[in-house]
């Protein structure tokens, strides 16, 4: 079976202006969402408490609200259904410092008489720990990006690195925009999802860039656009196939992974779609916009090759004892 068979390059670069317009629009919408609607920082980063309660039968949410409203500890708390009608999650802005009697114990006492229930999860994160986790999350993202930037510059050329990081920023911004749009709780798993998007998106971009690097030496085309079109078209079947398989995996995660992995799967789904799009329509056109010069690059390559030959010659001469 075959999805695509390469016959001639698809003139994608001709549409690059349209693609850029779409991307800029999406990024702006995402930024507006992030700054107006904001992000729902979960307890991992903001501190607070999450209590997951499972009832035998339908959870009496109204009675629960009533029972908890009397206690000042529960001010500003929210109670929502979690996955199924018999399960609820209580979110509190407060956390407790007492080891012997914490918010979870208080909740258990307050809820007594509302039915048969089991407290399945109590997560308490103090404000100090929250800010530490936030710092570490940002550090992880920053160092990952710097690491990638260095590696790609080393393996390709700075314009490739800059273009790939721009594509990366594009994907991450839109993914975060989606998180804001759906008002998902931003916890540690979201950071993991963002880092996965980062890895995935860079993967996709590198596969295309690798092909461009190869085509530059193999093909006789004289314009960057031609080479980019050719490379993108040649890698298109791989791009679509891989995205498809990852997509299948993520959809199963989304469908069967349970409520806890929902945010993770949702973020990744958005990231994979955007990442696939950006490796085709954002990264490569950016390369051209950054002023990638085919002649210079080829000249540099042949110069490098010449130097390599020269070195080889010297080595041979040295071994023969001439020098």
């Amino acid at each position, binding site marked *: *079976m*075959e999805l695509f*068979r*390469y016959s001639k390059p698809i003139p994608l670069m001709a549409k690059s202006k349209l693609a850029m317009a779409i991307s800029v629009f999406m990024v702006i919408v995402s930024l507006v969402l992030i700054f107006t609607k904001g992000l729902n920082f979960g307890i991992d980063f903001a501190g607070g408490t999450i209590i997951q309660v*499972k009832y035998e039968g339908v959870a009496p949410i109204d009675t629960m609200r009533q029972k908890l409203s009397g206690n000042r500890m529960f001010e500003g708390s929210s109670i929502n259904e979690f996955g199924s009608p018999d399960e609820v999650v209580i979110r509190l802005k407060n956390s*407790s*410092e*007492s*080891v*012997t*009697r*914490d918010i*979870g114990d208080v909740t*258990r006492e307050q809820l007594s008489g509302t039915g048969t229930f*089991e407290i*399945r*999860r*109590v997560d*308490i*994160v*103090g404000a100090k*720990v929250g800010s530490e*986790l936030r710092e*570490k*999350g940002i550090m*992880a993202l920053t*160092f*990952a990006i710097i*690491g*990638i930037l260095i*590696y*790609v510059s080393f393996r390709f050329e700075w314009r490739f690195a800059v273009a790939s990081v721009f594509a990366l920023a594009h994907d991450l911004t839109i993914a975060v925009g989606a998180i804001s749009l759906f008002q998902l709780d931003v916890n*540690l798993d979201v*950071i*993991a999802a963002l*880092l996965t998007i980062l*890895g*995935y998106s*860079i*993967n996709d971009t*590198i*596969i295309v860039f*690798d*092909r461009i690097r190869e085509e530059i030496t193999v093909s006789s085309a004289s314009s960057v656009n031609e080479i980019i079109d050719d490379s993108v078209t*040649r890698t298109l079947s*791989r791009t679509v*196939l*891989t995205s498809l*398989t*990852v997509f*299948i*995996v993520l959809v*199963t*995660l989304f469908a*069967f*992974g*349970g409520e*806890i*992995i929902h945010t*993770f799967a949702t973020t990744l789904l958005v990231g994979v779609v955007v990442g696939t799009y950006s490796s085709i329509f954002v990264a490569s056109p950016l390369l051209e916009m950054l002023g990638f010069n085919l002649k210079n690059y080829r000249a540099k390559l042949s110069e490098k090759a010449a130097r390599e030959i020269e070195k080889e010659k010297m080595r041979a001469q040295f071994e023969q004892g001439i020098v």
Partner: protein
Amino acid sequence: MLWQESSRMKLNYRVVLLIFATIFGLVFSLPSLTQSQNGAKITLGLDLQGGLHMLLGVKTEEAVTSQLKSTASGVKHFTEHNDILIDGLSASNNAVTFELLDEDDAVVMDEYLKKVEGTVVHSAQGKYSLAMTPAAIEKLKVQSVDQAIETIRNRLDQFGLSEPTVAKQGIDKILVELPGIKTPQEEQRARELISRAAKLEMMAIDEDRAMRANDVTQMEAESFGDKLLDDAIEPKTKHLVHEIAILDGTMLTDAQVGYDQSNRPVINFSLNSEGAQIFGDFTGKNVGKRLAIVLDGKVYSAPVINERIGGGSGQISGNYTTAEANDLAIALRSGALLAPIYMMEKRSVGPSLGADSIKGSMIALLSGFGAVVLFMMFYYRRAGVIANIALVVNILLIIAVMALFGATLTLPGMAGIVLTVGMAVDSNVIINERIREILAEGSSVKRAIEVGYENAMRAITDSNITTLIAAVALYVYGTGAIKGFAITISIGIIASMITAILGTHGIYIMLLDRIEKSKDTAKWFGVKRSM
């Protein structure tokens, strides 16, 4: 015939490596997969098996405060004993301050203060300030954290939970992980045991003012050198005791649960020889008076002393159940906490939720895996089957390596495995697409495989290394469960280099003659070779 068939299959180092990887993967993943008792197994994270995870802070400043208070009582004891008049004795802001009323006592006072360890003395016109040195404060803080860890570990060991973890995190944090917790009641009991100060003191009741105990305030009590304490059993009853304890729990050698005449649980304790000496002296001198047994600031009993008590043993009676008495005895045996602890982070997962999470992620893993396997077979035919073999070995390898390193599998770790499946497949997609390309150009199968792998290699290496960079950043700066995600991805990527790249290449080389002979590239790669 069969012999002839196999004689055409060329063994090569890549296949040998794949076979080794398969055997290795099978052997070391089996204990985890079959849940056998023998061999190294993957530990399930608390989010999957249920349990309690806590990050505790230590209020180290309070260890400093109580150290200062005890220095102050030392000063008080010394001055009273030597008839030195002082005024305004207080302990605050990391220093003990007081005013010496008679200049003539300065020499004796200086002599004494010089001997107090870890302090610097400042005196001007009779005004004394005894400050703890920064080094002494630092030492005490470190000591109080280490002592808390040691104490908590002791208590949990005696509590009888399976595999408790107690470890220092950063400078003043303690990580406690209890996988064996099953119910909220059990959890609360464990938390009570951990956080209990367990400070035992023997204090003399101020018999002269005992009648007024329910009328005076704490301030008034302090003004006559007393302390007002609650009764442990009847909270409304108050006791007036002399502020300075006769002896404390540091002189305790043992504490055991016993039963009194009416068969109620009590705690029998024994003191060391120094404690026994002090206890004997005190009881001998104070027959007819009462002695309060104080635990964590509450009076448990205040029996009248009938005679001198030698031998250094005593009893704490209270209104507790056997389980409570047992926990209390454990806490007393393992010593008091120098500084109180508080909760910074707690994550507790009930066993049923853990089981649900395992079920959910297994379904996700298996269905995702199944869908990908079917897709590959359908799309690439036999090349897909070869990729799938590599995929299975890849997963076995991840499990085996994690089991060998004693790594913990968390929920995000499961997600990491699922993602690795996607990435390993990606490598084979890239390779197969390259092979197809060369076949489409009309090259021989041998050349298609050779060039296909060569071309795919660069792209795969570059993309895998960048993902590894991200995974390392995640591991270094990630916490808890996120680390698990980084671990499985890193192991998965490295394993996929062996299976998805070298392994599949080896299989192709081994089967090369067969593929060439069959001339049916559609069957092998899903596409016809251009002629």
